[in-house]
């Protein structure tokens, strides 16, 4: 036992899994808010979009293809745990099917996230930041309400189980491989956003953030570019949602409360908006704190749920950062340029 943690390996796997999901969320919010200045208060909408895609389709797809091998256990919603277990058994014998399903659902999650990003921001993207923030936040709540009450999607308030996509691997390495895949995907998105931020497009979105009118005067279509950034960020969040559903192996509508959006904002502002390493650091700090609180929760004697106390603390921390260190722990750095000496040398050579 280290630090009183009963199972350190399990803890490390858990932290890495949640870190990779929150890293994707914070990096996409950093692209939207840190670099472009978009007030996306509906991050949870796109996370939910990806997760609901997996929840709605994973078991059903296998049931459609292998209907002869799965018995009839009654209606899909009441027996979906059984159906998901049966689907896992089929996947255990079909590694290629499992991989194909995994990849296609991730891509579909990204597409659903992107489409939701386009639809939810369409009414307000031309308007003031405050209107866009309200619209995205409200859209996230609406999707949750629909998912909770519209049974064909994810079985309403019951939620659905997701089959084990890595059932074909030995149990001993299954979780490590899963977390490895998640971390790899998360770092690929991190690298993608980092490259994007350093490209001419990155300079363009920073120009839009710093002075929209000037960017427009240079002939840039500000609305279109903001929309592109939001769709890209939402697609990343959609992938994160799909990965989250595969990791937790279940999807519940009430798991996607607006508080998740707030948490991602805490990460970006704490770590440093406009700095991708900062966004990653913010995600790491939050996930570690949250998982440690979960571990020690039962040891704190309080007549209330300790989670609420942690939300209060995060709220106060966020306000204090905004007041005393608005640039975050790692502030935004000026874009990398060719070093001055090199330029001088080259001129002298000529």
């Amino acid at each position, binding site marked *: 036992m280290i630090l009183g943690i009963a199972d350190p390996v399990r803890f490390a796997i858990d932290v890495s899994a949640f870190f990779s999901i929150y890293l994707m969320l914070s990096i996409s919010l950093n692209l939207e*808010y840190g670099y472009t*200045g978009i*007030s996306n*208060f509906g991050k949870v909408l796109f996370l939910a979009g990806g997760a609901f895609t997996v929840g709605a389709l994973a078991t059903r797809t296998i049931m459609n293809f292998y209907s002869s091998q799965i018995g009839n256990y009654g209606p899909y919603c009441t027996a979906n745990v059984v159906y998901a277990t049966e689907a896992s058994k089929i996947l255990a014998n079909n590694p290629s099917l499992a991989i194909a399903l995994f990849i296609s659902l991730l891509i579909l999650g990204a597409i659903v996230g992107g489409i939701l990003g386009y639809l939810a921001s369409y*009414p*307000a993207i031309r*308007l*003031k*930041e*405050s*209107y866009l*923030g*309200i*619209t995205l*936040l*409200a*859209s996230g*709540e*609406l999707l949750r*309400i*629909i998912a*909770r*009450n519209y049974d064909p999607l994810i079985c309403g308030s019951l939620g659905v189980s997701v089959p084990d996509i890595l059932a074909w691997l030995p149990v001993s390495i299954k979780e490590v491989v899963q977390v490895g895949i998640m971390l790899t995907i998360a770092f690929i998105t991190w690298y993608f956003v980092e490259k994007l931020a350093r490209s001419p497009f990155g300079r363009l979105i920073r120009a839009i953030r710093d002075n929209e009118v000037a960017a427009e005067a240079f002939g840039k279509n500000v609305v279109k570019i903001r929309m592109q950034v939001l769709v890209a960020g939402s697609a990343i969040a959609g992938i994160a949602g799909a990965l989250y559903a595969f990791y937790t192996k279940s999807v519940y509508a009430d798991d996607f409360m*607006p*508080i998740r959006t*707030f948490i991602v*904002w805490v990460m970006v*502002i704490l770590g440093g908006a406009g700095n991708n390493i900062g966004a990653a650091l913010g995600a790491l700090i939050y996930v570690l704190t949250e998982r440690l609180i979960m571990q020690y929760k039962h040891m704190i004697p309080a*007549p*209330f*749920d300790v989670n*609420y*106390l942690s*939300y*209060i603390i*995060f*709220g*106060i921390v*966020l*306000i204090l950062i*905004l*007041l005393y260190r*608005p640039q975050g722990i790692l502030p935004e750095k000026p874009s990398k340029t060719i070093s001055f000496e090199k330029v001088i040398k080259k001129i002298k050579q000529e």
Partner: protein
Amino acid sequence: MNVTLLIDAIIFGNLLVLLSIGLTLTYITLKIPNFAHGDFATVGMYVAYYFLVFHKISPYLTLPFAFLVSGTIALLSYLLVFRPLNNRGMSIVGLMVASIAIEVALRSTLHIYADSLTNIYKVISRGFIFRDFGIEISKTLYIPGLLIVSSILTLALVISLYILLTKTKFGIAMRAAIENPDLAEVLGVDVNKVYAVSWFLAGGLAGLAGALVPFRMATDPEIGWMLLLRVFSSSILGGLSSIYGAMLGGYIVGFAEVIGIQVLSNPPFNLSTAYRPAIPFAILIATLLLMPEGLASKIKLEKIAAKIRGVRGQ
């Protein structure tokens, strides 16, 4: 038309008007939608509940306390968070993030308060409703006390706000400070004081609405947050910058929601009543797409007055 439904719609409209006027009052000062506004209402609700449970006083009699406590919390959030941030030149998005942080902290505090009530004092703290008095006029017509109280309250507050803003020196200074803070400051208006009063009033109005909510629906610490979507919808429909627009928006959203869900949950639609929040959402989206400046921009009182005068002059 069903009378009970109409009464429901008027009551819900009254509550939304109280909340939307408050939200508009804070919006016109700092130009941010205050996400914590719903939680000011929840604070007022728990103040009323505290007096009801521990001192056995009717929530109607403790309305001034709900007003004071919620107003004070709103004032403190302005003085301790929004004013310093605004003075440091924080962006609009930054201010909105701060208001979400306050929202989360306040809601969590209320959850802790509710949990403690249950665990320490063994008092129900979620899902309670207040018992209301009422007048039975006939077998089919029953007038709940809330209809009378909330209507009188809303009407009285709107009239006194109108008098404050148009007839008193402070109100005129307030409008000047909101219209053009720099110019008002040059002319000797204490803009900070005006903004502080706006925030206090906004929080107080939300507290009043919150204290009345449990007469109508079962509540918990999330209720303010759930009402917030309706408040945003009605304020944006009203134009976010006009108090009269907020009033109009509040009644339209209140009526649309109560009557709309009644229509939609019956044949031929048979939708679940859980989709209720979709109605204010649809109004919000329609407003943003069709007239983002809101109703207030379409209805210009001065123009109408001028037209009438013009007709008379001819």
